[in-house]
């Protein structure tokens, strides 16, 4: 019997529980993954569980009161300052992911359909900027958009404007621009992968049957690449909602996001339970918005078809 047949046998014939073969394959797999799994359990699952637990506790000065309470969540959801921060964070991450996906799709399409023999090189060039330090990238946007920054002084020396534009830096737009720049490659890669999987003869068939290029794109290419669009959306949206550096450096007063409030509760504010509740609420809210976006995208595509 070939090794492939052995490998596929558990699906076909279920061996009796506790059989030797089952035990060895499963045990060896589990043994192999266990160091990594134990590490992830100890330093990811346990800490996140602790955060969830803390969010239901309260703190009196330095004492932690372990009585179960929703008080932190009541504060997180009803106090205007946190409500505003949640709304703004969700809005910024939603806009950022929509813009990133929208601007990146044509590039992913170009690489996939017209990349020629050097597709890997194109992808590598797209990813390089994203691997350089994120702190430095945010800093360079501050240098570009600042009052005495590159854009203002550049435009002034060319003579397009007479005095610096003050509305470039320290607002939500600056945060969105910087985040779009930071996450571009993360959006291109999943879209590219899903475009690569499309059977090109399907598009030809649509063209042969009389669809124009636009209709063929909307009815064949776009729906078939939807999985990539959805994962690009999620992979940008979920991490950006909790971004700390960008709002701090280029956001100013109008660009503050929830991460600043969370950090404050673990630093000087020192109210861990409230900080934990803010963290959990952020995760839950962003998951809800992300789920709504996924559903909306699926629905939109079905309507086009």
């Amino acid at each position, binding site marked *: 019997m070939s090794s492939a047949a052995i490998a596929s046998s558990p699906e076909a014939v279920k061996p009796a529980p506790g059989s030797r073969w089952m035990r060895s394959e499963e045990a060896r797999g589990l043994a192999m993954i266990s160091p990594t799994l134990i590490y*992830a359990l100890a330093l990811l699952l346990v800490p996140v569980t602790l955060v969830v637990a803390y969010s239901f506790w309260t703190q009196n000065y330095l004492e932690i009161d372990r009585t179960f309470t929703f008080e932190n969540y009541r504060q997180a959801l009803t106090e205007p300052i946190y409500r505003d921060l949640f709304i703004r964070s969700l809005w910024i991450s939603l806009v950022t992911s929509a813009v990133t996906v929208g601007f990146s799709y*044509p590039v992913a399409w*170009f690489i996939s359909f*017209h990349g020629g023999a050097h597709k890997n090189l194109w992808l590598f060039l797209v990813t390089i900027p994203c*691997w350089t330090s*994120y*702190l430095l990238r945010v*800093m360079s946007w501050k240098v570009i958009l600042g009052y005495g920054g590159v854009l203002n002084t550049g435009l002034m020396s060319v003579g397009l404007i007479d005095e610096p534009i003050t509305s470039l830096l320290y607002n939500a737009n600056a945060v969105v621009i910087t985040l779009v720049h930071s996450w571009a490659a993360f959006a291109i890669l999943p879209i590219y992968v899903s475009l690569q999987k499309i059977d090109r003869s399907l598009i030809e068939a649509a063209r042969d049957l009389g669809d124009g290029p636009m209709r063929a794109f909307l009815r064949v290419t776009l729906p078939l690449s939807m999985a990539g669009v959805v994962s690009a959306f999620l992979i940008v949206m979920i991490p950006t909602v909790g971004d700390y550096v960008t709002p701090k*450096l280029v956001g100013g007063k109008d660009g503050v996001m929830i991460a600043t409030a969370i950090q404050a509760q673990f630093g000087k504010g020192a109210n861990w339970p409230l900080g934990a509740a803010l963290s959990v609420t952020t995760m839950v809210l962003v998951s809800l918005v992300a789920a709504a976006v996924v559903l909306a995208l699926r629905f939109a595509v079905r309507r086009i078809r």
Partner: protein
Amino acid sequence: MLLHRLRLLPFLPAYVAVYFLFLYLPILLLPVFSFNDAATTTLPLAGFTTKWYASLWGNTVLLQAARNSLIVGVCVALISTILGICAARAITRYRFRGQRPATGLIMAPLFLPEIIVAVSLLMIVLQMGLELSLVTVILGQVVFCIPYSMSVLVSGFEGFDRSLEEASYDLGETAIGTFRRVTLPVVAPAIVSSLLVTFTISLDEFILAFFLSGTEPTLPVYIWGQLRFAAKLPGVLALGSLMILASVVLLTVAEVMRRRAERRTQATLVP
């Protein structure tokens, strides 16, 4: 088809060019201004100087931060690649119950806001009464780096022909001997690539280091502290340019190694 090409072709490459400018210009600005003979970042450029780079050498705090970053980077690269090898090997070689949830948990940091990972690690470290130090930074960054290490390694391990290992077992080699003499040579480029990628991530990582480093800053934490002072900006630009250069070089080598790994595993598939 021809008409469609004629209509799209001039437009799309132009768009792609603009997109690449958008990606690269902000990063190229740092080196440009790091050689500029002025303390502010204004156009037109003032003249060429290397004094900002020279000023980095005498700075002992900076050199200490660079040493910290190097220690953390090497440890993180080694630990996360070893743990990545275990997990990547387990999911490409064996099948077992709980494989999907286990993989999901290990890959989860990719899909979590980093601040939440940082805050939860900070809580557990302080809860256990540990002091914040480089060790806690290493522990935290490893959690964050394993998913990247794993994705590099899984693509290197996939397509590896099992029958080579089986042949080795049949010829009387032990499990360890087989790994060392058969498996390792084929997957070595993927492992080197994983080491380089995780080292680069660690070198540039800020949030976890910021929360977990205590009184021993890594380079990004040091830069964060300098950003408050406008006068320090040119020095930070010079340091940043060096870090970008390091990242690009390391990643190019990693990419070359990754492709070699792909070619090697594909070569073993040929009968």
